[in-house]
């Protein structure tokens, strides 16, 4: 297989500005989508349930945080909180208006998360870096508290949990206990493809450039006429929108029910941030690499290690996972801020010039 751009001349700017200007890249994307469509029918239920579904649901949040942290340079530890807002909004909406299709509500729940995100993003005009991280941490704790303490959010359910009701699309159950895993997977996949497309459109245009300008040199950005507050708040809004949709997918299509105190806790916020760093800040494809890493590693360790004769308990595996992810994150922060996405680029560059070294 040859990965070359030779002979593919761009005769107009639209072609040159395409998100995948090289034909082989476009073919590659088509193949990946085709595989993703076949996957649920060949993968075991176990793989679907423990790896593929959480991978799809979380990748939307990782893209969301990447927009905020990777593209705009603002750190947030509130991602899980914003996911929770999406999940609870979706729950309230579908129980209040059950006749509206759940897919619409999953999407709409993003707007609630966006509004909350903008509110907690307000301090970002004044504070940066570590201080902003602390401010978003406060958002995380406040939201976590609200999910537990405001019984209206979970419809006064005595268990304090969301119980995902049965909802259908064209008569086929897509949420709730009777929905097939394959169906849930395909719905999730649809969201992931759609949201990725929107995000990558956005980051390649004027708005994406203003975000990166704010990230790279905010005083010069201001001098281009970019209003810092607007750019930052828009980043918070879009980022939280993605987190909100991710949270709704996470509960409605993956978990099937959730207790906010445990699911949308600070640990998840950190994992999402680590996925952004491991995958590569400011990279869409990196977001998927990072998500795959944080989702697959625990499962591989928990079930893979005993298979090759290393006896570890679930709890130990859990700790080892955190250690590996933490160490890798620190390593990448110091050595390669563009994460796994950078390796991917190097590989593509090598392929482009192959068989020559440069």
């Amino acid at each position: 297989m040859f990965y070359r751009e030779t002979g593919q001349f761009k005769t107009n700017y639209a072609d040159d500005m395409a998100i995948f200007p090289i034909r082989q890249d476009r073919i590659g994307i088509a193949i990946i989508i085709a595989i993703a469509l076949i996957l649920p029918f060949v993968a075991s239920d176990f793989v679907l349930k423990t790896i593929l579904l959480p991978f799809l649901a979380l990748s939307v949040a990782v893209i969301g945080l990447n927009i905020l942290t990777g593209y705009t340079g603002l750190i947030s530890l509130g991602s899980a909180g914003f996911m929770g807002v999406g999940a609870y909004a979706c729950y309230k909406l579908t129980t209040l208006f059950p006749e509206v299709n759940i897919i619409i509500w999953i999407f709409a729940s993003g707007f609630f998360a966006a509004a909350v995100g903008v509110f907690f993003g307000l301090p970002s005009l004044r504070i940066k870096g570590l201080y902003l991280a602390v401010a978003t941490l406060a958002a995380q704790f406040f939201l976590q508290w609200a999910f537990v303490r405001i019984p209206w959010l979970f419809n006064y359910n005595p268990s304090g949990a969301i119980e995902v009701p049965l909802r259908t699309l064209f008569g086929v159950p897509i949420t709730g206990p009777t929905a097939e895993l394959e169906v849930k997977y395909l719905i999730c996949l649809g969201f992931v493809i759609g949201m990725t497309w929107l995000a990558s459109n956005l980051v390649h245009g004027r708005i994406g450039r203003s975000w990166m300008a704010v990230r790279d040199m905010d005083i010069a950005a201001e001098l281009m006429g970019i209003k810092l507050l607007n750019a930052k708040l828009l980043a918070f809004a879009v980022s939280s929108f993605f987190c909100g949709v991710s949270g709704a997918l996470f509960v409605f299509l993956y978990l099937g029910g959730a207790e906010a105190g445990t699911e949308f806790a600070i640990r998840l916020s950190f994992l999402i941030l680590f996925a952004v760093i491991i995958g590569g800040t400011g990279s869409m494809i990196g977001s998927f690499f990072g998500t795959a890493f944080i989702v697959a590693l625990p499962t591989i360790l928990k079930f893979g290690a005993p298979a090759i004769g290393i006896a570890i308990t679930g709890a130990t595996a859990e700790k080892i996972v955190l250690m590996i992810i933490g160490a890798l994150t620190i390593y990448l922060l110091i050595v390669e801020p563009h994460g796994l996405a950078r390796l991917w680029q190097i590989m593509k560059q090598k392929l482009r010039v192959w068989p020559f070294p440069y």
Partner: protein
Amino acid sequence: MLHVSPNTATTGIAKGEVLLSVENVSLRFGGVKAISDVSFDILKGEVRAIIGPNGAGKTSMLNCINGFYFPQEGHITYKGVRRQKVRPHEAASSGIARTFQNVALFKGMTTLDNIMTGRTLKMNVGLFWQLLRHGPAMREEIEHRRKVEDIIDFLEIQAIRKIPVGKLPYGLQKRVELGRALAMEPELLLLDEPMAGMNLEEKEDMCRFILDVNQTFGTTIALIEHDMGVVMDLSDRVVVLEYGRKIADGTPDVVKADQKVIDAYLGVAH
């Protein structure tokens, strides 16, 4: 050639009239007086040099003009309007662009994206179409890409179009930064030591670009520069600052012959 042009028609200021005037401006940082009671003006269409030893307050003066600093005393009149506290993005939308002494490019972005960012104020298709990257958003993007390609051709930087600017040598970075400022189609262009750290050939190129911009599009330029040769060649009038005060103002020949300027540059003790 470059097809961008500043919109002279809308401002109503003719060539040779006062575009910007600085009146009795003083700026303090705590106890440090960076600028003391300085007045001068910039005429539409001229190249105005600001020179002086290090720490004289030249950069601070540009920062006052484009809204990074607010002078404690005095005021600045731009296009006949006396400005109250102007924010940098307001200065930008009123037609002031600038480059920085220490290159303030967007390091992680390509040359193309850096210069495209200079078009931000001229682009206004909203979030909805941006999300779809179709229709009006794509049309706008292509229209501005065309302008940016003109600037890239003008500055002879075609080969580095898609390279992240952080990886470029310093001389080229300065050139990209000029390109980004030009993309704003400014009426007043402030250049803070555009040739610092360049070799002779790069300096000559930069001089040529600056003169071209000034002569072809009538862009007014305020320029800080240390190389006296360059200043004498490029500028119509020169203002000299020393320790935050204005010590001379006039044509290059007059300023060059001024005893106070000679003392300041030869480092005579005061």
